């Protein structure tokens, strides 16, 4: 397959692995903050190629995992309204809320539809003018511009039966919080898709303020290994900086059109992150001028009190200070078929990836 097989080339992979092994001396903990990276790292078995002193740890990069249980409860409450159709990305439907999940509500005949893009949700809104269509807006800078474009399209088309429940978040505050909260890492594998939108400048504070490198990486084995190699070289030379490995897609200035859309529709607000708590100016709320499409403002529904499972350590897993295997629920009370915590639900979640690909890593 063109544009993919080149990045899985055997000789090049082996030569990169050898270079990493040859040049890396100091122990290193590298955090990835993109769920796509978590999946790729496990799927391609990257940890099995690295020397023992380089550790890869998963950070808060999976949008489903960092989302508040209250958001799910909110969506469930909407889905129980007789005239509402919930439209959502597939990952969300299994996430447990306080007492139910969208999957269970679907089985109980709520109208919940999986869509691949917000445009599909708009089509549903067009075809069902008498119903209220709620789109669950989730994700970082990658998906937020799409949601913004959807809201603007809905306004232009006069689709006033279309609403967005926004749990969109931005990445830099979380990367900053991880370091401030004392999680021991030596560098970030920068998120490839987020950076496609935002560009690389927004990470400059990380080397400046925290003396730590960021390498924005692609998603193929060669991309990830080359990024690790770049971080190793920075670390060995003690010269942390922001670099773009994924240069075939990411430009330093980002995608200005997408950023304009985001700024047009959203505004920053303080937001709650699983594992990290409330981070200032880290969430995206819909601006007042688009309030007609804001599900939070247009629906007045009672939502059940939020309950979290106390034994679940998703928070620590997301911060990279605990491994999924440290959790006493892992693999027993909490499995991909019957998840307790959000990290086990999403394909991109650290626990799900760990369960699927490395549950016998100790052997």
């Amino acid at each position, binding site marked *: 397959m063109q544009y993919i097989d080149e990045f*899985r080339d055997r000789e090049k992979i082996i030569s990169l692995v050898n270079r990493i092994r040859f040049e890396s001396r100091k122990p290193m903990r590298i955090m990835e903050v993109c769920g796509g990276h978590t999946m790729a790292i496990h799927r391609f078995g990257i940890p099995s190629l690295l020397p023992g002193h380089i550790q890869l740890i998963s950070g808060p990069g999976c949008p489903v995992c960092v989302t508040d249980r209250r958001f799910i409860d909110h969506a469930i409450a909407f889905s129980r309204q007789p005239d509402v159709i919930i439209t959502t990305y597939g990952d969300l439907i299994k996430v447990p809320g306080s007492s139910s999940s969208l999957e269970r509500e679907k089985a109980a005949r709520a109208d919940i539809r999986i869509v691949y893009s917000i445009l599909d949700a708009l089509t549903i809104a067009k075809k069902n003018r008498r119903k209220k269509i709620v789109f669950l807006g989730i994700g970082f800078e990658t998906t937020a511009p799409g949601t913004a474009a959807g809201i603007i399209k809905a306004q232009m088309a006069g689709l006033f039966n279309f609403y967005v429940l926004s749990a969109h978040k931005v990445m830099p505050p979380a990367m900053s919080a991880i370091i401030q909260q004392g999680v021991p890492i030596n560098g970030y594998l920068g998120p490839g898709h987020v950076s496609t939108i935002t560009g690389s400048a927004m990470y400059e504070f990380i080397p400046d303020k925290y003396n730590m490198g960021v390498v924005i990486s692609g998603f193929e084995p060669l991309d990830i290994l080359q990024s690790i190699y770049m971080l190793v070289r920075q670390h060995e030379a003690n010269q942390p900086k922001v670099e773009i490995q994924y240069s075939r897609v990411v430009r330093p200035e980002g995608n200005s059109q997408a950023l304009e859309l985001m700024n047009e529709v959203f505004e920053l607000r303080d937001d709650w992150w699983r594992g990290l708590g409330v981070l200032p100016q880290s969430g995206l709320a819909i601006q007042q001028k688009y309030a007609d499409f804001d599900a939070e403002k247009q629906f007045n529904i009672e939502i059940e009190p939020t309950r979290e499972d106390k034994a679940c350590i998703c928070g620590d897993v997301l911060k990279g200070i605990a491994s999924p295997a440290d959790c006493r629920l892992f693999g027993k009370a909490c499995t991909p078929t019957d998840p307790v915590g959000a990290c086990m639900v999403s394909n991109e979640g650290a626990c799900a990836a760990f369960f699927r690909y490395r549950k016998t890593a100790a052997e």
Partner: protein
Amino acid sequence: MTKEQKIMLGHGSGGKLSHELISSLFLRHFQHPALTAMTDSAVLNLPEAQLAFTTDSYVVDPLFFPGGNIGRIAVAGTVNDLAVSGAKPMFISAAFIIEEGFPIATLEQIVTEMANEARHAGVSIVTGDTKVVGTGKCDKVFINTAGLGSFHVEFPPFPGQESVKPGDVILISGTIGDHGMAVLSARNELPVQSGLESDCACLNELILEVRKASSRIKFMRDATRGGLGTILAELCEKSKFGIEIQYETIPVRETVRGMCELLGFDPLYVANEGKVVIVAESSDAQRILLALQNHPLGKDAAIIGKVVEQHPGFCWLKTEYGSSRIVDMLAGEQLPRIC
């Protein structure tokens, strides 16, 4: 019957309409003396005493997809369940649950496909049933088929999972993921035109060729829902052996790979409807491979791995660049990723 005719509740009432539907549609296509006698049970003659018996229900959305329809799967799926047990498929039952308002012409297309597929596989549809439910009570049409097969003295049942030992080889009869991706691209929700066809097919003839080539086959399974990955994980689960497969040897069509990349799916977990996984003694690996490749349904067959002593209970996938990871069972459905 005219094109506009639709299934009504009366077609399932057991009265005149039912009778008409059965004789003008089902009996016309499924012609077998045991069926046309219209008795309460089919009375059958079986050559040998040892039998294989299986049943499966089929619900497919959409009913028609590139490379087949629900009727074809309903026959092939049950034929394959018998064939991978080592039996010669003989007789099949067909029970329909039909939604009120379903066009009779569409039902006829499905029934025709079933009759063709059965004829092709050399099995007879000998008994059946029709029920009609109100609008919204089922999704268009559901089909249940049960199958009866018999074992020839020369070809007894396969020894099964317990006989599998380190050193045995693992083969797959062709490319994986074709059916799942063909169905997915046929659904309206995904704007992809793939040109991909389902691999839906009866495998009994192919399996017979393989059996003629080797008597050292230990285990067979058709890799349907859950895909190849789930079968392998199941095979070694709770076993004293492990499995090792080599990524590059697994046949996957470029289109399927591309669609999987796009959606974040793993082809190992995408459904097939015409692929068999074979475990056999390594001494016969090449003979089996040749027998598979000489048949049109097995032309892309490959040896993909082996049974090992290491990591008992787990299947590991190795890549040519030296990395490895576990292949586990699929939990729930594969869902497209957010970003």
